[in-house]
Protein backbone atom coordinates (compact mmCIF):
# COMPACT_ATOMS: atom_id res chain seq x y z
CA UNK A 1 0.00 0.00 0.00
CA UNK A 2 1.39 3.38 -0.91
CA UNK A 3 -1.18 5.16 1.23
CA UNK A 4 1.22 5.52 4.12
CA UNK A 5 0.29 8.97 5.42
CA UNK A 6 1.95 11.44 7.74
CA UNK A 7 -0.54 10.37 10.37
CA UNK A 8 0.68 6.79 10.12
CA UNK A 9 4.27 7.95 10.33
CA UNK A 10 3.55 10.00 13.45
CA UNK A 11 1.71 7.19 15.21
CA UNK A 12 4.47 4.71 14.43
CA UNK A 13 7.17 7.09 15.62
CA UNK A 14 5.31 7.96 18.77
CA UNK A 15 4.35 4.35 19.53
CA UNK A 16 7.82 2.93 19.08
CA UNK A 17 9.40 5.84 20.95
CA UNK A 18 7.09 5.05 23.85
CA UNK A 19 8.08 1.39 23.73
CA UNK A 20 11.80 1.87 23.39
CA UNK A 21 12.82 5.10 25.15
CA UNK A 22 12.44 3.65 28.68
CA UNK A 23 14.61 0.69 27.74
CA UNK A 24 17.20 2.89 26.09
CA UNK A 25 17.35 5.05 29.21
CA UNK A 26 17.72 1.97 31.37
CA UNK A 27 20.59 0.68 29.27
CA UNK A 28 22.26 4.09 29.14
CA UNK A 29 22.18 4.58 32.87
CA UNK A 30 23.69 1.18 33.50
CA UNK A 31 26.94 2.74 32.25
CA UNK A 32 26.62 5.68 34.64
CA UNK A 33 29.52 6.35 36.95
CA UNK A 34 27.30 7.80 39.67
CA UNK A 35 25.42 5.81 42.24
CA UNK A 36 22.53 8.22 41.70
CA UNK A 37 20.70 6.80 38.77
CA UNK A 38 19.17 10.06 37.66
CA UNK A 39 22.34 12.08 37.42
CA UNK A 40 24.80 11.41 34.63
CA UNK A 41 28.36 11.42 35.92
CA UNK A 42 30.32 9.91 33.08
CA UNK A 43 30.74 6.53 31.43
CA UNK A 44 31.70 3.53 33.50
CA UNK A 45 31.23 -0.23 33.53
CA UNK A 46 31.86 -0.56 37.23
CA UNK A 47 28.28 -1.67 38.00
CA UNK A 48 28.79 -4.70 35.82
CA UNK A 49 31.82 -5.53 37.91
CA UNK A 50 29.81 -5.07 41.09
CA UNK A 51 27.10 -7.29 39.73
CA UNK A 52 29.47 -10.15 38.93
CA UNK A 53 31.03 -9.92 42.37
CA UNK A 54 27.63 -10.12 44.07
CA UNK A 55 27.36 -13.78 45.02
CA UNK A 56 23.65 -13.49 45.90
CA UNK A 57 22.82 -12.40 42.35
CA UNK A 58 24.94 -15.11 40.82
CA UNK A 59 23.29 -17.75 43.01
CA UNK A 60 19.84 -16.48 42.10
CA UNK A 61 20.77 -16.49 38.42
CA UNK A 62 21.93 -20.10 38.68
CA UNK A 63 18.71 -21.16 40.42
CA UNK A 64 16.63 -19.36 37.79
CA UNK A 65 18.52 -20.92 34.94
CA UNK A 66 18.11 -24.41 36.33
CA UNK A 67 14.40 -23.87 36.97
CA UNK A 68 13.90 -22.45 33.48
CA UNK A 69 15.71 -25.26 31.70
CA UNK A 70 13.93 -28.03 33.59
CA UNK A 71 10.48 -26.49 33.54
CA UNK A 72 10.57 -25.43 29.89
CA UNK A 73 11.77 -28.84 28.76
CA UNK A 74 9.11 -30.60 30.78
CA UNK A 75 6.50 -28.08 29.64
CA UNK A 76 7.47 -28.61 26.01
CA UNK A 77 6.99 -32.37 26.29
CA UNK A 78 3.68 -32.11 28.12
CA UNK A 79 2.46 -29.17 26.04
CA UNK A 80 3.22 -30.94 22.76
CA UNK A 81 1.37 -34.02 23.99
CA UNK A 82 -1.57 -31.85 25.02
CA UNK A 83 -1.59 -30.07 21.65
CA UNK A 84 -1.56 -33.40 19.86
CA UNK A 85 -4.49 -34.57 21.98
CA UNK A 86 -6.43 -31.36 21.34
CA UNK A 87 -6.00 -31.47 17.58
CA UNK A 88 -5.89 -35.18 16.82
CA UNK A 89 -7.54 -37.27 19.51
CA UNK A 90 -11.09 -36.47 18.38
CA UNK A 91 -13.78 -36.92 20.98
CA UNK A 92 -13.12 -38.44 24.37
CA UNK A 93 -14.76 -38.15 27.74
CA UNK A 94 -13.67 -35.04 29.58
CA UNK A 95 -12.43 -33.27 26.47
CA UNK A 96 -14.17 -30.00 27.38
CA UNK A 97 -12.58 -30.01 30.82
CA UNK A 98 -9.22 -30.77 29.24
CA UNK A 99 -9.32 -27.88 26.78
CA UNK A 100 -10.64 -25.65 29.57
CA UNK A 101 -7.65 -26.51 31.73
CA UNK A 102 -5.32 -25.76 28.82
CA UNK A 103 -6.75 -22.30 28.19
CA UNK A 104 -7.58 -21.21 31.74
CA UNK A 105 -3.99 -20.77 32.99
CA UNK A 106 -3.37 -18.33 30.13
CA UNK A 107 -5.81 -15.83 31.60
CA UNK A 108 -5.45 -16.72 35.26
CA UNK A 109 -3.92 -13.96 37.39
CA UNK A 110 -0.51 -15.04 38.69
CA UNK A 111 -1.49 -14.31 42.28
CA UNK A 112 -4.26 -16.90 42.12
CA UNK A 113 -2.19 -19.57 40.39
CA UNK A 114 0.65 -18.99 42.84
CA UNK A 115 -1.59 -19.12 45.89
CA UNK A 116 -3.40 -22.24 44.69
CA UNK A 117 -0.19 -24.12 43.95
CA UNK A 118 1.35 -23.12 47.25
CA UNK A 119 -1.67 -24.40 49.16
CA UNK A 120 -1.40 -27.66 47.21
CA UNK A 121 2.28 -28.10 48.00
CA UNK A 122 1.64 -27.45 51.67
CA UNK A 123 -1.34 -29.78 51.58
CA UNK A 124 0.70 -32.70 50.27
CA UNK A 125 3.66 -31.79 52.43
CA UNK A 126 6.13 -31.05 49.64
CA UNK A 127 9.17 -29.05 50.76
CA UNK A 128 9.31 -25.79 48.89
CA UNK A 129 12.37 -25.14 46.76
CA UNK A 130 13.60 -25.63 43.21
CA UNK A 131 11.35 -28.65 42.65
CA UNK A 132 8.12 -26.87 43.56
CA UNK A 133 8.98 -23.88 41.36
CA UNK A 134 9.74 -26.23 38.48
CA UNK A 135 6.38 -27.97 38.95
CA UNK A 136 4.57 -24.64 39.08
CA UNK A 137 6.31 -23.19 36.04
CA UNK A 138 5.82 -26.37 34.05
CA UNK A 139 2.10 -26.23 34.71
CA UNK A 140 1.45 -22.78 33.31
CA UNK A 141 4.15 -22.91 30.63
CA UNK A 142 2.83 -26.17 29.17
CA UNK A 143 -0.39 -24.37 28.35
CA UNK A 144 1.48 -21.72 26.35
CA UNK A 145 3.47 -24.43 24.58
CA UNK A 146 0.33 -26.30 23.75
CA UNK A 147 -1.28 -23.19 22.24
CA UNK A 148 1.77 -22.53 20.06
CA UNK A 149 2.13 -26.17 18.95
CA UNK A 150 -1.57 -26.76 18.40
CA UNK A 151 -1.85 -23.75 16.10
CA UNK A 152 0.91 -25.30 13.99
CA UNK A 153 -0.67 -28.75 14.13
CA UNK A 154 -4.02 -27.34 13.03
CA UNK A 155 -2.53 -26.32 9.68
CA UNK A 156 -0.48 -29.51 9.38
CA UNK A 157 -1.54 -31.60 6.37
CA UNK A 158 -2.76 -34.77 7.98
CA UNK A 159 -2.20 -36.76 4.80
CA UNK A 160 1.53 -36.54 5.53
CA UNK A 161 1.01 -38.75 8.57
CA UNK A 162 -1.27 -41.02 6.60
CA UNK A 163 1.38 -41.29 3.89
CA UNK A 164 3.91 -42.35 6.52
CA UNK A 165 1.54 -45.03 7.82
CA UNK A 166 0.81 -46.11 4.27
CA UNK A 167 4.53 -46.53 3.62
CA UNK A 168 4.90 -48.83 6.59
CA UNK A 169 5.48 -46.63 9.65
CA UNK A 170 3.94 -47.49 12.98
CA UNK A 171 2.07 -44.52 14.47
CA UNK A 172 5.02 -43.79 16.78
CA UNK A 173 7.48 -43.89 13.86
CA UNK A 174 5.19 -41.62 11.83
CA UNK A 175 5.28 -39.07 14.63
CA UNK A 176 9.05 -39.28 15.08
CA UNK A 177 10.04 -39.34 11.40
CA UNK A 178 7.43 -37.06 9.85
CA UNK A 179 5.33 -35.01 12.25
CA UNK A 180 8.02 -33.99 14.69
CA UNK A 181 10.58 -32.76 12.13
CA UNK A 182 7.90 -30.69 10.43
CA UNK A 183 6.44 -29.09 13.55
CA UNK A 184 9.91 -28.71 15.12
CA UNK A 185 10.04 -24.90 14.63
CA UNK A 186 6.80 -24.54 16.60
CA UNK A 187 8.06 -26.88 19.31
CA UNK A 188 11.27 -24.90 19.56
CA UNK A 189 9.45 -21.59 19.81
CA UNK A 190 7.21 -23.17 22.43
CA UNK A 191 10.30 -24.12 24.40
CA UNK A 192 11.73 -20.62 24.08
CA UNK A 193 8.44 -19.11 25.20
CA UNK A 194 8.29 -21.45 28.20
CA UNK A 195 11.91 -20.65 29.02
CA UNK A 196 11.30 -16.89 28.88
CA UNK A 197 8.13 -17.13 30.94
CA UNK A 198 9.99 -19.08 33.59
CA UNK A 199 12.93 -16.63 33.62
CA UNK A 200 10.47 -13.80 33.90
CA UNK A 201 8.10 -15.00 36.54
CA UNK A 202 8.06 -13.25 39.88
CA UNK A 203 4.67 -13.87 41.43
CA UNK A 204 4.24 -17.63 41.06
CA UNK A 205 7.87 -18.23 42.05
CA UNK A 206 7.44 -16.03 45.14
CA UNK A 207 4.53 -18.17 46.28
CA UNK A 208 5.96 -21.56 45.50
CA UNK A 209 9.61 -21.18 46.42
CA UNK A 210 11.25 -21.68 49.76
CA UNK A 211 14.17 -19.91 51.41
CA UNK A 212 16.68 -22.20 49.72
CA UNK A 213 15.76 -21.22 46.19
CA UNK A 214 15.60 -17.49 45.49
CA UNK A 215 15.12 -16.83 41.81
CA UNK A 216 16.49 -13.83 39.96
CA UNK A 217 13.13 -12.02 39.61
CA UNK A 218 12.54 -12.40 43.35
CA UNK A 219 15.99 -10.99 44.00
CA UNK A 220 15.44 -8.11 41.58
CA UNK A 221 12.04 -7.36 43.03
CA UNK A 222 13.27 -7.13 46.59
CA UNK A 223 16.14 -4.91 45.43
CA UNK A 224 14.05 -2.49 43.39
CA UNK A 225 11.38 -2.15 46.02
CA UNK A 226 13.93 -0.03 47.82
CA UNK A 227 14.39 2.14 44.75
CA UNK A 228 16.37 2.29 41.54
CA UNK A 229 19.83 0.80 41.67
CA UNK A 230 22.58 0.92 39.04
CA UNK A 231 23.43 -2.73 39.63
CA UNK A 232 19.92 -3.73 38.57
CA UNK A 233 20.30 -1.49 35.53
CA UNK A 234 23.42 -3.43 34.60
CA UNK A 235 21.62 -6.73 35.07
CA UNK A 236 18.65 -5.50 33.03
CA UNK A 237 20.98 -4.41 30.25
CA UNK A 238 22.51 -7.86 30.07
CA UNK A 239 19.07 -9.48 29.92
CA UNK A 240 17.79 -7.02 27.30
CA UNK A 241 20.96 -7.60 25.30
CA UNK A 242 20.52 -11.37 25.28
CA UNK A 243 16.86 -11.16 24.28
CA UNK A 244 17.55 -8.58 21.57
CA UNK A 245 20.34 -10.64 20.08
CA UNK A 246 18.13 -13.73 20.18
CA UNK A 247 15.09 -12.12 18.60
CA UNK A 248 17.11 -10.40 15.88
CA UNK A 249 18.98 -13.61 15.03
CA UNK A 250 15.74 -15.58 14.91
CA UNK A 251 14.00 -13.11 12.66
CA UNK A 252 16.99 -12.75 10.33
CA UNK A 253 17.21 -16.53 9.99
CA UNK A 254 13.50 -16.94 9.39
CA UNK A 255 13.46 -14.10 6.89
CA UNK A 256 16.44 -15.54 5.02
CA UNK A 257 14.82 -18.98 4.92
CA UNK A 258 11.60 -17.49 3.65
CA UNK A 259 13.32 -15.54 0.89
CA UNK A 260 15.34 -18.60 -0.15
CA UNK A 261 12.29 -20.83 -0.18
CA UNK A 262 10.33 -18.35 -2.28
CA UNK A 263 13.19 -17.99 -4.73
CA UNK A 264 13.55 -21.75 -5.08
CA UNK A 265 9.82 -22.19 -5.56
CA UNK A 266 9.81 -19.56 -8.29
CA UNK A 267 12.78 -21.19 -9.96
CA UNK A 268 11.04 -24.58 -9.83
CA UNK A 269 7.86 -23.14 -11.31
CA UNK A 270 9.78 -21.50 -14.14
CA UNK A 271 11.76 -24.63 -14.92
CA UNK A 272 8.60 -26.58 -15.58
Amino acid at each position, binding site marked *: *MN*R*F*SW*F*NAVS*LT*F*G*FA*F*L*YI*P*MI*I*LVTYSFNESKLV*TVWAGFSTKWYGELFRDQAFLDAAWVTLRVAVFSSTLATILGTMAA*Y*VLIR*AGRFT*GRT*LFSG*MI*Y*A*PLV*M*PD*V*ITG*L*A*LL*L*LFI*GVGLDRGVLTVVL*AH*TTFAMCYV*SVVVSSRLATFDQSLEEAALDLGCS*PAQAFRLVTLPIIAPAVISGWLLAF*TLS*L*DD*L*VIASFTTGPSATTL*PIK*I*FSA*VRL*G*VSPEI*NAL*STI*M*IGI*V*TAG*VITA*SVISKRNMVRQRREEQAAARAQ
Partner: protein
Amino acid sequence: MRKFFLIAVPYAWLLALFLIPFFIVLKISLSDVALARPPYVPQFSWDDGIMAFLRDLDFENFVFLTEDSLYWKAYLSSVSIAGLSTILTLTIGYPLAYGMARAPEEWRATLMMLIILPFWTSFLIRVYAWMGILSQEGLLNQFLMWTGLISEPLMILNTPTAVYIGIVYTYLPFMVLPIYSALDRMDGSLIEAAEDLGCSRLSAFWLVTVPLSRNGIIAGCFLVFIPALGEFVIPSLLGGSGTLMIGKVLWEEFFSNRDWPVASAVAVILLLILVIPIVLFQRNQQDAEEAAK
Protein backbone atom coordinates in the same frame (compact mmCIF):
# COMPACT_ATOMS: atom_id res chain seq x y z
CA MET B 1 -3.35 -47.83 24.61
CA ARG B 2 -0.96 -45.31 23.14
CA LYS B 3 -3.76 -42.79 22.78
CA PHE B 4 -4.81 -43.37 26.38
CA PHE B 5 -1.28 -42.67 27.58
CA LEU B 6 -1.08 -39.56 25.43
CA ILE B 7 -4.26 -38.16 26.92
CA ALA B 8 -3.72 -39.38 30.46
CA VAL B 9 -0.32 -37.82 31.14
CA PRO B 10 -1.08 -34.14 30.45
CA TYR B 11 -4.60 -34.62 31.76
CA ALA B 12 -3.42 -36.00 35.09
CA TRP B 13 -0.81 -33.26 35.35
CA LEU B 14 -3.37 -30.50 34.86
CA LEU B 15 -5.86 -32.09 37.21
CA ALA B 16 -3.27 -32.43 39.95
CA LEU B 17 -1.53 -29.09 39.53
CA PHE B 18 -4.27 -26.86 38.18
CA LEU B 19 -7.76 -28.03 39.06
CA ILE B 20 -7.25 -29.61 42.48
CA PRO B 21 -5.38 -26.56 43.83
CA PHE B 22 -8.46 -24.45 43.08
CA PHE B 23 -10.62 -26.72 45.17
CA ILE B 24 -8.09 -26.37 47.95
CA VAL B 25 -8.33 -22.58 47.65
CA LEU B 26 -12.11 -22.85 47.80
CA LYS B 27 -11.95 -25.09 50.84
CA ILE B 28 -9.53 -22.86 52.72
CA SER B 29 -11.62 -19.81 51.91
CA LEU B 30 -14.34 -21.49 53.98
CA SER B 31 -12.00 -22.23 56.91
CA ASP B 32 -10.97 -20.11 59.88
CA VAL B 33 -7.64 -18.53 60.55
CA ALA B 34 -5.67 -20.05 63.42
CA LEU B 35 -2.30 -19.80 65.06
CA ALA B 36 -1.12 -23.11 63.78
CA ARG B 37 0.86 -24.72 61.04
CA PRO B 38 -0.71 -24.47 58.46
CA PRO B 39 -2.46 -21.41 59.86
CA TYR B 40 -6.10 -22.39 59.46
CA VAL B 41 -8.71 -24.77 60.88
CA PRO B 42 -10.38 -27.15 60.40
CA GLN B 43 -7.79 -29.61 59.22
CA PHE B 44 -9.30 -32.59 57.57
CA SER B 45 -8.74 -35.81 59.45
CA TRP B 46 -10.10 -39.26 58.78
CA ASP B 47 -10.83 -39.83 62.49
CA ASP B 48 -13.50 -37.16 62.73
CA GLY B 49 -15.13 -38.08 59.45
CA ILE B 50 -16.22 -35.90 56.58
CA MET B 51 -19.41 -34.57 58.17
CA ALA B 52 -17.65 -33.11 61.19
CA PHE B 53 -15.20 -31.48 58.79
CA LEU B 54 -17.90 -29.97 56.62
CA ARG B 55 -19.77 -28.66 59.64
CA ASP B 56 -16.80 -26.49 60.54
CA LEU B 57 -16.74 -24.76 57.15
CA ASP B 58 -18.57 -21.45 56.84
CA PHE B 59 -18.83 -18.28 54.78
CA GLU B 60 -17.42 -16.07 57.51
CA ASN B 61 -14.50 -14.86 55.39
CA PHE B 62 -16.78 -13.77 52.59
CA VAL B 63 -18.97 -11.91 55.04
CA PHE B 64 -15.83 -10.24 56.35
CA LEU B 65 -14.90 -9.15 52.81
CA THR B 66 -18.22 -7.38 52.39
CA GLU B 67 -18.00 -5.69 55.78
CA ASP B 68 -14.51 -4.25 55.46
CA SER B 69 -14.63 -1.48 52.87
CA LEU B 70 -10.95 -2.04 52.02
CA TYR B 71 -11.83 -5.11 50.00
CA TRP B 72 -14.69 -3.93 47.89
CA LYS B 73 -12.88 -0.67 47.27
CA ALA B 74 -9.90 -2.69 46.10
CA TYR B 75 -12.08 -4.68 43.71
CA LEU B 76 -13.74 -1.53 42.38
CA SER B 77 -10.49 0.30 41.91
CA SER B 78 -8.92 -2.74 40.21
CA VAL B 79 -11.79 -2.86 37.72
CA SER B 80 -11.63 0.88 37.06
CA ILE B 81 -7.84 0.96 36.73
CA ALA B 82 -7.87 -2.06 34.42
CA GLY B 83 -10.76 -0.58 32.40
CA LEU B 84 -9.25 2.87 31.96
CA SER B 85 -5.82 1.43 31.13
CA THR B 86 -7.44 -0.76 28.50
CA ILE B 87 -9.01 2.29 26.85
CA LEU B 88 -5.69 4.14 26.98
CA THR B 89 -3.86 1.15 25.50
CA LEU B 90 -6.40 0.98 22.69
CA THR B 91 -5.97 4.71 22.00
CA ILE B 92 -2.23 4.28 21.58
CA GLY B 93 -2.28 0.76 20.17
CA TYR B 94 -4.80 1.21 17.36
CA PRO B 95 -2.94 3.97 15.50
CA LEU B 96 0.25 2.00 15.96
CA ALA B 97 -1.26 -1.20 14.55
CA TYR B 98 -2.88 0.82 11.75
CA GLY B 99 0.41 2.46 10.88
CA MET B 100 2.11 -0.93 10.81
CA ALA B 101 -0.55 -2.42 8.55
CA ARG B 102 -0.18 0.46 6.09
CA ALA B 103 3.58 0.62 6.20
CA PRO B 104 5.44 -0.51 3.06
CA GLU B 105 5.62 -4.28 2.72
CA GLU B 106 9.38 -4.47 3.26
CA TRP B 107 9.21 -2.69 6.64
CA ARG B 108 6.59 -4.91 8.12
CA ALA B 109 8.76 -7.79 9.29
CA THR B 110 11.02 -5.33 11.09
CA LEU B 111 8.11 -3.46 12.68
CA MET B 112 6.64 -6.77 13.77
CA MET B 113 9.94 -7.70 15.37
CA LEU B 114 10.04 -4.36 17.18
CA ILE B 115 6.61 -5.09 18.67
CA ILE B 116 7.53 -8.62 19.70
CA LEU B 117 10.91 -7.74 21.19
CA PRO B 118 9.53 -6.09 24.38
CA PHE B 119 7.24 -9.07 24.73
CA TRP B 120 10.27 -11.35 25.18
CA THR B 121 11.97 -8.90 27.51
CA SER B 122 11.47 -9.32 31.24
CA PHE B 123 8.22 -7.85 32.43
CA LEU B 124 9.76 -6.89 35.74
CA ILE B 125 12.57 -5.01 34.04
CA ARG B 126 10.19 -3.11 31.82
CA VAL B 127 8.18 -1.99 34.82
CA TYR B 128 11.35 -1.15 36.67
CA ALA B 129 12.53 1.04 33.79
CA TRP B 130 9.72 3.47 34.57
CA MET B 131 10.72 3.87 38.20
CA GLY B 132 13.77 5.89 37.27
CA ILE B 133 11.79 7.96 34.79
CA LEU B 134 8.77 8.79 36.91
CA SER B 135 10.36 9.49 40.29
CA GLN B 136 10.45 12.99 41.81
CA GLU B 137 13.99 13.65 40.63
CA GLY B 138 13.49 11.36 37.66
CA LEU B 139 14.11 12.05 34.01
CA LEU B 140 10.54 13.02 33.15
CA ASN B 141 10.46 15.69 35.81
CA GLN B 142 13.93 16.90 34.84
CA PHE B 143 12.78 17.15 31.24
CA LEU B 144 9.54 18.96 32.05
CA MET B 145 11.31 21.46 34.30
CA TRP B 146 13.95 22.03 31.61
CA THR B 147 11.25 22.85 29.07
CA GLY B 148 9.73 25.22 31.61
CA LEU B 149 6.32 23.55 31.58
CA ILE B 150 6.48 23.06 35.32
CA SER B 151 8.48 24.73 38.05
CA GLU B 152 7.98 22.17 40.80
CA PRO B 153 8.60 18.43 40.24
CA LEU B 154 5.38 16.47 39.79
CA MET B 155 4.48 13.55 41.97
CA ILE B 156 3.93 10.76 39.45
CA LEU B 157 5.58 7.69 40.92
CA ASN B 158 3.46 6.11 43.66
CA THR B 159 0.22 7.44 42.18
CA PRO B 160 -2.42 5.72 40.03
CA THR B 161 -1.08 7.68 37.03
CA ALA B 162 2.15 5.69 37.22
CA VAL B 163 0.11 2.49 37.32
CA TYR B 164 -1.75 3.53 34.14
CA ILE B 165 1.52 4.27 32.40
CA GLY B 166 2.95 0.95 33.56
CA ILE B 167 -0.03 -1.09 32.36
CA VAL B 168 -0.24 0.67 29.00
CA TYR B 169 3.48 0.22 28.50
CA THR B 170 3.74 -3.45 29.41
CA TYR B 171 0.54 -4.58 27.71
CA LEU B 172 0.80 -2.51 24.52
CA PRO B 173 2.09 -5.45 22.40
CA PHE B 174 -0.96 -7.51 23.46
CA MET B 175 -3.21 -4.80 22.03
CA VAL B 176 -1.23 -4.15 18.88
CA LEU B 177 -0.76 -7.76 17.73
CA PRO B 178 -4.41 -8.86 17.35
CA ILE B 179 -5.44 -5.53 15.81
CA TYR B 180 -2.52 -5.63 13.40
CA SER B 181 -3.34 -9.16 12.33
CA ALA B 182 -6.99 -8.18 11.71
CA LEU B 183 -5.95 -5.12 9.69
CA ASP B 184 -3.28 -7.03 7.82
CA ARG B 185 -5.82 -9.61 6.65
CA MET B 186 -8.12 -6.90 5.36
CA ASP B 187 -8.40 -6.62 1.61
CA GLY B 188 -7.01 -3.23 0.56
CA SER B 189 -9.46 -2.94 -2.31
CA LEU B 190 -12.31 -2.63 0.24
CA ILE B 191 -11.18 0.91 1.10
CA GLU B 192 -10.86 1.71 -2.58
CA ALA B 193 -14.36 0.34 -3.14
CA ALA B 194 -15.73 2.49 -0.30
CA GLU B 195 -14.04 5.57 -1.72
CA ASP B 196 -15.26 4.67 -5.18
CA LEU B 197 -18.78 4.57 -3.75
CA GLY B 198 -18.43 8.07 -2.39
CA CYS B 199 -16.88 7.77 1.08
CA SER B 200 -14.33 10.29 2.23
CA ARG B 201 -11.12 8.79 3.61
CA LEU B 202 -12.27 9.38 7.15
CA SER B 203 -15.70 7.89 6.67
CA ALA B 204 -14.19 4.93 4.82
CA PHE B 205 -12.03 4.38 7.89
CA TRP B 206 -15.02 4.52 10.24
CA LEU B 207 -17.39 2.53 8.05
CA VAL B 208 -15.04 -0.14 6.72
CA THR B 209 -11.70 -0.39 8.52
CA VAL B 210 -12.90 -0.12 12.10
CA PRO B 211 -15.80 -2.62 11.80
CA LEU B 212 -13.54 -5.12 10.03
CA SER B 213 -10.94 -4.91 12.77
CA ARG B 214 -13.62 -5.30 15.45
CA ASN B 215 -12.60 -8.81 16.47
CA GLY B 216 -8.99 -7.71 16.78
CA ILE B 217 -10.00 -4.73 18.94
CA ILE B 218 -12.11 -6.89 21.23
CA ALA B 219 -9.42 -9.54 21.54
CA GLY B 220 -6.81 -6.89 22.30
CA CYS B 221 -8.98 -5.25 24.95
CA PHE B 222 -9.57 -8.51 26.75
CA LEU B 223 -5.91 -9.46 26.53
CA VAL B 224 -5.11 -6.21 28.35
CA PHE B 225 -8.07 -6.03 30.73
CA ILE B 226 -7.97 -9.59 32.08
CA PRO B 227 -4.34 -9.72 33.23
CA ALA B 228 -4.41 -6.06 34.34
CA LEU B 229 -7.25 -6.85 36.74
CA GLY B 230 -5.15 -9.25 38.78
CA GLU B 231 -1.90 -7.33 38.35
CA PHE B 232 0.52 -7.30 41.24
CA VAL B 233 3.95 -6.14 40.06
CA ILE B 234 2.88 -2.85 38.49
CA PRO B 235 0.84 -1.46 41.42
CA SER B 236 3.42 -2.55 43.94
CA LEU B 237 6.39 -1.00 42.11
CA LEU B 238 4.76 2.06 40.56
CA GLY B 239 1.54 2.56 42.53
CA GLY B 240 2.88 3.08 46.02
CA SER B 241 0.74 2.63 49.08
CA GLY B 242 -1.98 4.91 47.73
CA THR B 243 -3.02 2.60 44.89
CA LEU B 244 -5.40 -0.13 45.79
CA MET B 245 -5.45 -3.17 43.58
CA ILE B 246 -6.76 -6.58 44.44
CA GLY B 247 -3.64 -8.51 43.42
CA LYS B 248 -1.64 -6.48 45.88
CA VAL B 249 -4.26 -6.92 48.62
CA LEU B 250 -4.17 -10.68 48.16
CA TRP B 251 -0.38 -10.71 48.30
CA GLU B 252 -0.28 -8.68 51.49
CA GLU B 253 -3.06 -10.66 53.11
CA PHE B 254 -1.06 -13.78 52.48
CA PHE B 255 2.53 -12.72 53.10
CA SER B 256 2.12 -9.91 55.64
CA ASN B 257 -1.01 -10.81 57.59
CA ARG B 258 -0.61 -14.57 57.11
CA ASP B 259 -4.38 -14.79 56.90
CA TRP B 260 -4.69 -17.65 54.44
CA PRO B 261 -8.46 -18.09 54.64
CA VAL B 262 -9.09 -14.42 53.81
CA ALA B 263 -6.46 -14.47 51.04
CA SER B 264 -8.23 -17.51 49.60
CA ALA B 265 -11.60 -15.79 49.83
CA VAL B 266 -10.15 -12.76 48.00
CA ALA B 267 -8.89 -15.11 45.28
CA VAL B 268 -12.27 -16.83 44.95
CA ILE B 269 -14.06 -13.50 44.47
CA LEU B 270 -11.45 -12.29 41.98
CA LEU B 271 -11.93 -15.49 40.04
CA LEU B 272 -15.69 -14.96 39.98
CA ILE B 273 -15.23 -11.42 38.68
CA LEU B 274 -12.86 -12.70 36.00
CA VAL B 275 -15.27 -15.35 34.75
CA ILE B 276 -17.39 -12.72 32.96
CA PRO B 277 -14.68 -11.16 30.76
CA ILE B 278 -13.10 -14.59 30.17
CA VAL B 279 -16.36 -16.05 28.88
CA LEU B 280 -16.96 -13.00 26.69
CA PHE B 281 -13.41 -13.23 25.35
CA GLN B 282 -13.82 -16.92 24.57
CA ARG B 283 -17.02 -16.17 22.67
CA ASN B 284 -15.35 -13.42 20.66
CA GLN B 285 -12.52 -15.78 19.73
CA GLN B 286 -14.99 -18.40 18.55
CA ASP B 287 -16.85 -15.82 16.46
CA ALA B 288 -13.61 -14.68 14.94
CA GLU B 289 -12.63 -18.26 14.12
CA GLU B 290 -15.96 -18.91 12.48
CA ALA B 291 -15.76 -15.68 10.50
CA ALA B 292 -12.31 -16.70 9.28
CA LYS B 293 -13.64 -19.95 7.83
